[in-house]
């Protein structure tokens, strides 16, 4: 090895050694580098499932009979459906479908059994919440093949047969954009709001301006709110942009009240901003703050039902998802815009967002240091 190469190698090793020392000192970054693959392995390996089973389904039976029970049993045995215990009226089932409490409604029309026995080929009506075509795809496929599978299996009635009529509610063509584009509002807000505010306090520390704020008579809550309020406006501008694109570019059918979505968006934006501020009070520098934000995005995007069916995840992942504001906001925005849900039907999703906001703000204010100690 020439003298020049040896010198180059020595300099290279000096830099490598320095990087290792710095990496060892910055434990949070090191933990992130190990933690992020673990989270990704856990979420992608165990939580995400694009073939969800045990989807909640309601039954509307006008006259209970051995035939309708046999068909329900057969459907339940496929593993795709978890039927509610009791039969509902058409209106009740429709409301549950709109509120997202059930994914399917199986309706046996009047005289279904009689027509079945007579060989008149009655139709089983299936209403599916098709806002997310991925969630219902396989389950509907199974339902569609049921008449074939059950043909000739009705004892004493070899000619008994029925058909399945499927109504894909809210998104009849099964267009993915209808589901994704409105939800993008929530995703964009989560990413930008958390990221922007996560560096808000650390930036003051890094630039040395925190010293001025701390010797001034400003209260912690004033600092927090002062940093949050401008971004609420920015959040609404982003939403306006997405809504315009949804309407004019992607032709998403907006069925519900845009005003209602905009009103319910305020606590969601505030919750994300509060989360960012909380990270900002915990991080020692802007780099750490951004890393913490990433730890928040990853589960938000994967566990909220934005990309993958929420009902396809195991219970632990659903609990985690329920704790995230994005999960509830997606239900609100999809419910109102695509399913024409009313305020009373989506208010139940507002409470978790408000609780999240309050908790994050309390942590932020408690962690905000009024001194340089």
């Amino acid at each position, binding site marked *: 090895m020439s003298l020049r190469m040896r010198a180059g190698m020595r300099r290279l090793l000096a830099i490598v050694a320095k990087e290792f020392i710095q990496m060892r000192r910055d434990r949070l970054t090191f933990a992130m580098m190990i933690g992020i693959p673990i989270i990704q392995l856990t979420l992608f390996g165990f939580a995400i499932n694009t073939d969800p089973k045990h989807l909640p389904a309601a039954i509307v039976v006008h006259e209970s009979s051995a035939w309708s029970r046999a068909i329900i049993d057969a459907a339940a045995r496929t593993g795709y459906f978890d039927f509610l215990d009791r039969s509902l009226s058409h209106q009740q089932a429709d409301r549950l479908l709109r509120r997202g409490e059930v994914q399917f409604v199986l309706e046996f029309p009047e005289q279904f059994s009689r027509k079945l026995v007579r060989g008149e080929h009655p139709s089983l009506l299936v209403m599916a919440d098709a806002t997310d075509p991925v969630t219902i795809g396989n389950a509907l496929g199974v339902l569609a093949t049921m008449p074939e599978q059950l043909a000739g299996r009705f004892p004493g009635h070899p000619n008994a047969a029925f058909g399945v009529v499927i109504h894909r509610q809210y998104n009849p063509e099964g267009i993915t954009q209808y589901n994704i584009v409105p939800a993008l509002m929530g995703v964009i807000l989560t990413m930008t709001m958390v990221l922007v505010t996560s560096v808000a306090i650390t930036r003051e520390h890094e*630039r*040395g*301006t*925190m*010293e*001025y704020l*701390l*010797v*001034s*008579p*400003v*209260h912690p809550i004033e600092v927090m709110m002062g940093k949050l309020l401008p971004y609420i406006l920015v959040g609404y501008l982003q939403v306006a942009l997405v809504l315009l694109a949804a309407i004019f570019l992607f032709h998403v059918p907006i069925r519900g009240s845009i005003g209602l979505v905009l009103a319910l968006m305020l606590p969601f934006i505030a919750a994300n901003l509060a989360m960012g501020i909380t990270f900002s009070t915990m991080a020692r520098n802007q780099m750490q703050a951004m890393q913490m934000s990433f730890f928040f995005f990853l589960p938000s995007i994967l566990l909220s039902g934005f990309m993958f069916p929420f009902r396809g995840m195991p219970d632990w992942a659903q609990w985690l998802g329920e704790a995230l504001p994005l999960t509830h906001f997606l239900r609100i925005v999809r419910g109102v815009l695509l399913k024409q849900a009313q305020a009373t039907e989506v208010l139940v999703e507002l409470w978790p967002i408000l609780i999240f906001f309050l908790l994050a703000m309390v942590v932020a204010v408690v962690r905000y240091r*009024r*001194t*340089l*100690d």
Partner: protein
Amino acid sequence: MNAIEVVGLGKSFADQWVVRDLTLSIRRGEIFAFLGPNGSGKTTTMRMLSGLLTPDAGHGFCVGHDLVRERQALRERIGYVSQHFSLYEDLTVRENLDFVLRIHGKARRVREKSMDRFGLRLLADQLAGKLSGGWKQRLALACALVHRPDVLLLDEPTSGIDPEARRFFWRVIQEEASTGCTVMISTHYLDEVQQYCDRLAYLMHGRMLIIGTVHEVIETSGLAAVQILRAGFEVARKAEHQPGVEHVAQTTSGVLLTGPDLKSLQACAARIAPALPAEAVAPRLEEVFLHLARSDGRNAA
């Protein structure tokens, strides 16, 4: 009532005492200098007095407010200029002033007065980050004074700025002091201290070694000095390690010998430079502090 009154004040970081047992009273309207080498505890003390740090020992009052229990009230009545520019570099001069005015609930006309007083009008729309060091400090001082504080804490405000800016700085400080504002300033410039400050304290390893007027401090040190006029480097080299000579300094006038006994210094001057005139002069603060530091080191050992 004194503007600043602290008793037994102390602060530690990671079990290391940075300031120890500091007892100090500063009168209203006084310009008080805080001196000491880097790491001696000057900034930590300033930060405790401004409520930026919580003391781990002792107690104290600044403008009548307890340093720990009444921080909020204290913040309303102090002005603080830190060692590094702590205003917003991405705001203009005018925007920085407006921000500070709004925080203190002051009228817009205060900004106009302030810009005139500090000569900032022509730079009003310039980003603070683009200002030179001297102008940044002018802006920082202007912002620290908009709410007419009772106590002004200045942590090395004149470091790295040109003589003209320093002179302006001191003129403003003197004006403020004349209206009753108490000024506490940490600095390394001993000439400024001799020229402008009423009293000084010297800190070393977090302990206050001496306090008083410049004259008192020199008197207390018990040092004497002899200047060998027109003497050069050779004489200075010979003077080192001579009995009775504690410090040797080459100055523009010659060689300055400092030590505890005047007669020994005169004898030394006659011995090493018999052909050159020598005269007794007042010791400089620099040698006094070196002497104190050395004595402190010996005592600690």
